[in-house]
């Protein structure tokens, strides 16, 4: 049975302007039967349009495409943040989503406190989070900085922290937006080799990236997105050759 099954997926994203958030305007809209200001200030973007694919156990899918091509929307839909406008998404298993390194960070709290919180946002119990703490601290290589508030961290240090937490638990499915690029070269090298062993444990991985090197090294399938339309699905060798 497929681990992830996406069929004819379409996702529309409404964008609300300041006007659309006004209570007064909405009340006026009600009283005028909606004729006067229909959908004023509300734009709908079709972020994913009719995408279909299935992932089996062991699949590691790389998502490629320009900025705004729908990679992040697809990841968010798999994570349950967005629901399909039409079509279906079936996910069989637990998910860990690493979409934004800043997710859930408490800038005033220490790195260690944030590690515990981030682990728990991924569904880890108190005990699991505490047990994983030394390994996460080790992987992040932040050492004594972990006692300092996260607001004193650089972007690269934040990326290290978030990466270490995101890849230290074993979900069935790992969803990842490749923001690790913010870290320095040495850490990126370490992160790749860590990801390789980590990917081997996860049952399925979906990774959005601009780096073909990462895809060749880590993925066995590639989905090319353009303006929300799935252009091609195949192995890295096939697609990158073309």
């Amino acid at each position: 049975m497929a681990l992830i099954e996406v069929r004819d997926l379409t996702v529309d994203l409404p964008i609300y302007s300041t006007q659309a958030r006004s209570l007064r305007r909405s009340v006026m809209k009600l009283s005028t039967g909606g004729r006067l200001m229909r959908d004023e200030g509300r734009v709908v973007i079709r972020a994913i349009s009719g995408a279909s694919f299935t992932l089996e156990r062991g699949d590691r899918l790389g998502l490629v495409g320009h900025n705004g091509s729908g990679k992040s929307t697809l990841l968010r839909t798999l994570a349950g943040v967005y629901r399909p406008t039409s079509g279906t998404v079936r996910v069989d298993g637990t998910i860990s989503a690493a979409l934004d390194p800043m997710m859930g960070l408490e800038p005033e709290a220490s790195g260690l406190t944030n590690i515990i919180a981030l682990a728990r946002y991924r569904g880890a119990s108190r005990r699991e989070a505490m047990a994983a703490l030394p390994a996460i601290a080790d992987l992040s290589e932040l050492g004594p900085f972990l006692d300092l508030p996260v607001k004193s961290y650089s972007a690269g240090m934040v990326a290290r922290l978030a990466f270490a937490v995101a890849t230290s638990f074993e979900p069935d499915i790992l969803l990842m937006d490749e923001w690790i690029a913010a870290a320095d070269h040495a850490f990126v090298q370490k992160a790749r080799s860590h990801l390789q062993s980590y990917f081997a444990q996860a049952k399925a991985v979906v990774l959005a990236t601009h780096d073909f090197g990462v895809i060749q090294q880590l993925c066995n399938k590639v989905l090319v997105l353009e303006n929300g339309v799935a252009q091609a699905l195949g192995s890295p060798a096939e697609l990158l050759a073309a």
Partner: protein
Amino acid sequence: MTGLSGAALNPGQELSQALRLWPLWTFMSWQDIRQRYRGSLLGPFWVAGGVATASLGASVLFSRVLQIDNREFMPFVALGIALWSLISLTLIEACHSFTASWSLIRNAALPRPVHVLRTVWRNLIVFAHTLPVVAIMLWLNGQRLHPEAVLALLGLGLLMVNLVWAAWVIALLSARFRDVIQLITYGLQFVSFITPIFWYPDMAGRHFGMLVLNPFYHWLEVIRAPLLGHAPNPENWAVTGGMALAGTIVAILTFRRYRNDIAFWV
């Protein structure tokens, strides 16, 4: 195996997962409190100090203005203020339940109700910190617990159900419309005057019929009355219980309808 179910959940499953994740939202509530009172001397006991000073001031003033016995009035005011703080702070902070957690809402596979339960639980913890002060004020004024006091636990349970659904609806509205927080804040200020916190319900006189229409009066009464040694009226129970039921249904319906929109509103 660690992780959340994300896109695999239908609305019913998401609701039940939200409840089963109680270790997470109680953890988040405690984190909030630690964060808010970091480096503060009294921490959440500052709220208890607020309740103490407000009840002392109000009971001294109003017992003279209204010419009533302060020993009887002070326990009434202390309980009223503590409970009103719980209700009003929960409903005001509910305006930020979704907007303050936007980064988790847009990036994590967490069930949506978790963010609201976190707000309500946080305020219940703060309320618990005011209880020793209230107990002391009751005891000093010769107020002892009667067997009826057990009913207050049932009352508190019903109040919590009411606060959860109301906080959900407010969080939703406030994520969609930026004016809601002002409406709630000033609306509650008005309600605090027409609700018997600083005056006895029977002082409403010929306006008692209007008082009965104020749900907050019933919410207060099912907890305050038993602790002061008399059972609440049947209509106090009926309104509080009925609203708990009806409100929960409204919350579930709005959850089904608007759940997906929250990520776009925050």
